């Protein structure tokens, strides 16, 4: 979306190029609106006011600086979780098990926190982050390896591995790593104060937001501006052609999947080190699943992930207020996400079929 780079050959009409870019923005935006419209209809059928709903979302998600900070705090894990879908998608992989990588990243961070508490924060925090990122990267990298070397369907495998990761976390926080002081909610021992990651100065938002935005920018450069990204796009389009060209498809598949896992793992690390303070069941909060929707809405473009993640974080931030004011269940956001998701997939069929955007309309014979 909004790519402003070259590629305009002399024979191209710049209007046609512009039309193609306009299509890349207009179709997903239209789908998003259609999804919201379908959800409005759903609310009307239930006798609730869509206007009130959206007004509350605006108020609780974006209305004040306070609500903006709430939204941005929730944006951090969503950005990183969406990258776990968008990066493997460049190679044609549909990985939906980011939730497992978040859990493992957080678990590794929480479990090692006690052992590293003797070290100064400047040494220990990077080590904790590295441990979380490594565990998650290996986890999703394995999904890519299974796909490439064994032909195992990555969608099913990644979701199964997410369930396994959550079971592993439950086992470890209730058994070997349980802090005896955590009675109601089994957790690892809380991280020492100097191992916690704080807020961005002047903001009530932790550093995960910066990490997420940097992650998106780095991913965009990787995908759009490097030979690896170019090779990945070729392999994603046609594996056989890529193999004939001598591209290392296996390494690309595993590498992009593992990098996606690294980002999701980082989300888990921030959830533990900056939000919860210890690893527990709160890690499986569904960020991984919302991340899937964000990546699809952004059409797997890392830059587009940023605004989409902020928007969906705003919806999640407003969930509590909507529940109280409109007497709607907490699953309302899930229903909204479901409608939007179906709408964005239906919109895939529109590309190249809307006359306004076709090159012919703008004077290029084909």
């Amino acid at each position: 979306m909004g790519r402003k780079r070259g590629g305009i050959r002399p024979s191209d009409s710049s209007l046609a190029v512009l039309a193609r870019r306009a299509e890349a923005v207009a179709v997903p935006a239209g789908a998003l609106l259609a999804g919201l419209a379908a959800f409005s209809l759903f609310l009307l059928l239930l006798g609730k006011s869509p206007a009130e709903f959206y007004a509350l979302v605006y108020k609780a998600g974006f209305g004040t600086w306070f609500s903006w900070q709430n939204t941005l705090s929730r944006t951090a894990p969503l950005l990183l979780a969406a990258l776990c879908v968008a990066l493997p998608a460049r190679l044609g992989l549909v990985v939906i098990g980011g939730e497992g990588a978040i859990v493992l990243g957080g678990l590794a961070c929480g479990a090692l926190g006690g052992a590293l508490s003797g070290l100064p924060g400047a040494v220990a925090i990077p080590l904790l982050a590295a441990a979380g990122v490594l565990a998650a990267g290996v986890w999703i990298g394995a999904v890519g390896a299974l796909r490439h070397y064994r032909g195992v369907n990555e969608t099913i495998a990644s979701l199964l591995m997410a369930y396994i990761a959550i079971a592993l976390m439950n086992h470890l926080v209730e058994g070997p790593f349980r802090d005896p002081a955590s009675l109601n909610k089994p957790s690892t021992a809380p991280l020492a104060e100097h191992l916690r990651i704080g807020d961005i100065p002047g903001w009530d938002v932790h550093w995960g937001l910066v990490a997420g935005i940097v992650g998106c920018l780095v991913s965009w450069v990787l995908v759009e501006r490097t030979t690896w990204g170019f090779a990945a796009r070729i392999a994603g389009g046609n594996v056989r052609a890529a193999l004939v060209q001598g591209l290392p498809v296996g390494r690309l598949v595993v590498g992009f999947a593992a990098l996606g896992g690294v980002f999701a793992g980082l989300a888990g690390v921030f959830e533990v080190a900056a939000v919860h303070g210890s690893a527990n069941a709160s890690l499986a909060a569904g960020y991984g699943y919302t991340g899937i929707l964000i990546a699809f809405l952004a059409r797997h473009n890392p830059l587009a992930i940023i605004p989409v993640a902020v928007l969906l974080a705003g919806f999640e931030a407003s969930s509590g207020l909507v529940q109280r004011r409109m007497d709607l269940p907490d699953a309302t956001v899930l229903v909204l996400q479901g409608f939007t998701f179906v709408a964005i997939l239906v919109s895939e069929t529109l590309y190249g079929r809307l006359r306004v955007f076709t090159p012919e309309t703008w004077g290029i014979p084909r």
Partner: protein
Amino acid sequence: MNGTELGLWAIPLAILGGAIRVSTPFLFVSLGEVLTERSGRINLGLEGTLVFGAMSGYAIACVTGLPWAGVLAAAGAGSLFGLVHGLVCSLPRVNDIAVGISLMLLGTGLAYFFGKPFIQPVAPDLPALELGWWSDLPQVQAALRVNVLFPVGILAALLLWWMFRATRIGLLVRVVGDSTDAARAMGLRPAFIRTLATAAGGAFAGVGGAYLSLFYPGSWNEGISSGQGLMAVALVIFARWNPIACLGAALLFGGAGALGPALQSVGIPDGYYLFYAMPYVMTLGVLIATSSPGRAMAGAPGELSISK
């Protein structure tokens, strides 16, 4: 002989009983998925259909007091989800795997949304057959207390197998699933047949959900299914798209799922969560063992996106 003398024999007995109890939803979802995949589509959304079927079945049974009305409602809701999946996937250039994921989220979301008021009330259970009447042992009686839907599922498996083998409908589904071009050449409408097959497959998954909420575990809550629908999809690959093999695979997966509770029932509580993860690990293992890189899997429908 009384119950306490059963000793360690209680474990295999509990696993057998558990396998029958746990396998029924697997069986129904996998039969539905076999029908869908044989027509050349994959529906990952059956996980959402299962959860919505569980909610709608429970809700209708609660309101009407008739558990079978609940089963019927769940089947209807399931076929509606299947219909939506089938119609959306009929559009050109729409990815059926992605649509499945979106309907998985929508199905669970809608189920949680409408299911909130039904978490407390108690719905009437589906009737059970007491196949353990010949034994005095309470454990044997408990293990062989089989729900009516289990034999119904076995019957459905046999019927589907016969349908694919010997009927015109079965042949149409298979042709459409193996080659869109051949089907078109025969004057068939592939998208139409696939949509019907997906809707029928959704109805099966809905019934599987009703079993969850109306018999075992027998109540509606938001954690009622954790991936059973998805595991059933993997199970279909393992069963090589054969309805009869689905029955065996469902029992095997059910047994793996029953391992944790069975060990717990004889007082081995250690590693509860690890045993709980057994079915996932087993499904993954089975997927790894049965998949093959490069070439299509034996028995796979030719138009299936996961095997192409």
